[in-house]
């Protein structure tokens, strides 16, 4: 009987007039902007006759470098979207009782902001850098499964687009990025916004899981001769451990989201209040994935800082072994701390104590890493480039995030901090220095490798100072607001609360922060137009193998696979002048994988099926799912063996860049 009622509600709640969100100027503006942008893009590509180029060089590519760049471009766009959300929230709370956003809008915006920043900005940005760099660092020609890699990207992209479209079609999810039950259930969130959450994250999550598998195998099996595990560059190590964490944690999220979908679409009782369901089960499953997820984005970032600090201090990384062990320690601990997200929800003192201790223990390996970075710089010949600046700013900012983290880790004290802006300030102090600074550092550092020219260092410094100052001015006041009792996820506050000055300060900070981001975009534009194209393939005088080949990297990465004898192999090759020249006799044909239309096809069909499922049009969704199976079957019968690059071609390509070396402009003095 009960089941029947739920079914009826389900069918009734989807009406055509709910399809497009109407009557809101902000959203109407976006709808018009989206349509215009799409028309503009299609017209522009047609006018420039670039469709074929786009299709053969990008959309069907299986080249890890291009896939990486597509990840990074998407991530920058998502950063823009998530950042706009952040600014809107800051504008709304700039003064007490503002009427800019109503509570419903505020709910939707912090939800999409959180999801987009973590899953569609931080993850793809880092995965993009991993894609570009890891095969090069280990001296390989691609990842283990190039086509699967493309599929990962297209599934992520499809999930991201599906999630973003909720803004103009159907309505955004509004139950927070954590989407706790019972709020996120059908009973309290009858619209389809939260269906978008369940389905879009599922699609993107499958892509991420495949990335994890791909990189584990790549790093285990494709390292060049002589590169033992303990000779791997630190970014490779962190990527490896991150991939293990992905494989260990993402299936939990897959299940949690599937159960959420069942609860919302098919009336089951996993997390509902009625029917024996258990809302805390969601919270546990979510954070069983969610906390490792935080380290999935933090560890690669640590890897990037390690590379940057070592290169610009002209020294090997200090305490390499202890770095490796602390990564492993952090990864293990990250699986046993999840309850610290809900100390106040009745777990009891014994459980809380246990999780307090495990949480605080994470500070130990993290502290080891901090000291290792500092000791790497000690007595180094430090060169303050833009990339290095981000790494330098990371250290103190992240320490603030870490120390407040230890404060929050204390179960008893958390009763005071829980659900306040203190927490919001804490995790922004972890995520922004830990991830955003890192991807900026990585981008400035590897940009010349990707594109063959550098980002402008002077504009880069403007970007840096505006962003870092803006960040601190935005989030530092939130610690104090939180301690004074300002709760998170509240769309406004009264004038009597006395919060107004700090909120205003924080809003001003966010404008500076946004200016920093704008300068970053301008830097990309400026550098594409004007930067010096005639630069060395090793502009930073760097240490690892990616710098031993051309910039931009030729599609087969290395003409000859290198042999490695130590850490920082390229540094030693340069010092001993060994293995830098390529002899004609060493050139052999190279086998490479072919492009494929299947990954993008799968992305599109998953997107369509997902969209129909979100709207609970089950028959249409099932029909679309046939397309998914068709794709799998086609893949099973696909015996494309790839192609061989002829010696002549390798000869020509290698000559082109090796000859000019020495005449180019060097950037490190």
């Amino acid at each position, binding site marked *: 009987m009960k089941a029947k009622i739920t079914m009826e509600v389900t069918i009734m709640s989807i009406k055509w007039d709910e399809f497009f969100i109407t009557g809101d100027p902000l959203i109407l503006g976006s709808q018009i902007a989206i349509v215009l942008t799409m028309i503009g893009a299609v017209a522009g590509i047609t006018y420039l006759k670039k469709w074929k180029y786009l299709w053969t060089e990008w959309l069907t590519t299986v080249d890890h470098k291009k896939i990486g760049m597509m990840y990074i471009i998407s991530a920058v766009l998502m950063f823009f979207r998530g950042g706009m959300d952040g600014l809107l929230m800051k504008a709304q709370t700039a003064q007490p009782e503002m009427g800019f956003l109503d509570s419903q809008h505020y709910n939707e915006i912090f939800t999409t902001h959180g999801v987009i920043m973590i899953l569609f900005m931080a993850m793809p940005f880092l995965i993009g850098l991993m894609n570009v760099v890891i095969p090069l660092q280990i001296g390989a020609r691609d990842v283990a499964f190039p086509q699967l890699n493309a599929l990962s990207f297209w599934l992520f992209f499809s999930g991201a687009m599906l999630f973003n479209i909720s803004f103009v079609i159907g309505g955004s999810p509004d139950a927070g990025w954590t989407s706790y039950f019972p709020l996120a259930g059908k009973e309290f969130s009858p619209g389809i916004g939260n269906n978008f959450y369940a389905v879009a994250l599922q699609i993107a999550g499958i892509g991420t899981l495949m990335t994890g598998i791909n990189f584990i195998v790549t790093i285990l099996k494709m390292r060049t001769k002589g590169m033992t595990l303990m000779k791997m560059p630190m970014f490779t190590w962190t990527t490896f451990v991150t991939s293990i964490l992905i494989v260990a944690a993402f299936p939990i999220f897959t299940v949690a989201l599937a159960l959420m979908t069942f609860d919302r679409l098919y009336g089951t009782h996993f997390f509902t209040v009625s*029917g024996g369901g258990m809302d805390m089960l969601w919270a546990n499953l979510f954070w069983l994935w969610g906390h490792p997820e935080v380290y999935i984005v933090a560890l690669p970032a640590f890897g990037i800082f390690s590379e940057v600090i070592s290169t610009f201090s002209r020294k090997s990384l200090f305490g390499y072994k202890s770095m490796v062990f602390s990564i492993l320690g952090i990864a293990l601990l990250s699986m046993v701390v999840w309850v610290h997200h809900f100390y106040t929800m009745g777990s009891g003192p014994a459980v809380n104590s246990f999780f307090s201790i495990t949480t605080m223990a994470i500070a130990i390996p993290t502290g080891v890493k901090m000291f290792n970075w500092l000791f790497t710089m000690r007595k180094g010949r430090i060169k303050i480039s833009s990339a290095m600046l981000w790494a330098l700013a990371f250290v103190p900012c992240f320490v603030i995030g870490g120390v407040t983290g230890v404060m929050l880790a204390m179960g008893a004290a958390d009763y005071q901090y829980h659900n306040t802006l203190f927490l919001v300030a804490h995790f922004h102090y972890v995520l922004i220095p830990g991830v955003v600074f890192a991807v900026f550092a990585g981008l400035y550092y590897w940009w010349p490798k990707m594109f063959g020219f550098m980002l402008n260092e002077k504009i880069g410094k403007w970007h840096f100072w505006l962003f870092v100052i803006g960040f601190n001015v935005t989030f530092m006041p939130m610690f104090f607001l939180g301690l004074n009792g300002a709760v998170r996820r509240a769309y406004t506050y009264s004038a009597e609360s006395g919060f107004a000055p700090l909120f205003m300060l924080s809003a001003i900070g966010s404008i500076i922060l946004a200016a920093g981001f704008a300068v970053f975009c301008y830097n990309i534009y400026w550098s594409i137009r004007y930067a010096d194209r005639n630069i060395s393939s090793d502009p930073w005088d760097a240490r690892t193998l990616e710098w031993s080949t051309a910039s931009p990297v030729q599609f087969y990465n290395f003409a000859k696979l290198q042999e490695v004898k130590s850490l920082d192999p390229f540094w030693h090759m340069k010092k001993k002048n060994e293995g830098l020249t390529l002899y004609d006799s060493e050139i052999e044909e190279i086998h490479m994988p072919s492009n494929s239309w299947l990954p993008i096809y799968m992305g599109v069909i998953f997107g369509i099926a997902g969209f129909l499922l979100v709207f609970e049009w089950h028959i249409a969704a099932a029909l679309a799912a046939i397309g998914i199976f068709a794709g799998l079957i086609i893949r099973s019968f696909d015996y494309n063996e790839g192609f061989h690059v002829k010696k002549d071609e390798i000869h020509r390509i290698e000559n082109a860049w090796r000859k000019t070396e020495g005449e180019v402009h060097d950037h490190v003095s």
Partner: protein
Amino acid sequence: MIMSAKVDTSLPLEYQTEQDRMNILGFWVFLGAEIVLFATLFGVYGVLYERFAGGPTHKDIFVIKDVMIQTVLLLTSSFTMGIAIFEMRRHNLKGLIIWLVITLALGAGFLFMEINEFIHYAHEGATMQTSAFLSSLFVLLGTHGAHVTLGIGWATMVIIQLLKRGLTPTTARKTFIIGLYWHFLDVVWIFIFTFVYLKGLVA
């Protein structure tokens, strides 16, 4: 794919090229993810399995005889899958295909029983929507059943390729991987049999 040029003929067919070795390792890692997935589903079931919400309990719906038949069918199919791979190692294509077909027939028998079981439950008034216990039961069993279904479809594709191409390193690798998958599903079933059915009947 990238290094398929190098073939080491001293190894079993499916391990001869580097790409095939990577595919097999990748599949092991994927099975690791599958273990986490099923472990989570077992965990959910473990939390919800006594929340009947006034609906039917384990004892009201489980039919031990049918479950025993399902178990025998699936365990036997794992055994025949083992023989199939053994025939593959002996380069006996015909034997391989025959044993694969037997395996899939047993798998289909298992599925048939499972669907009947679900219909029986529904007749008893036990559906996914009845209680948390039943939601978690159906999703756990259904996920396993969906895996078996997928495995049958996938193995059918591989059999077609074996018929078309014979035993090559690639087809051997594909067969070997589907073998791993099949044994994995069997292991999951043993856990389901123990922690769902036996425990439910003893409780």
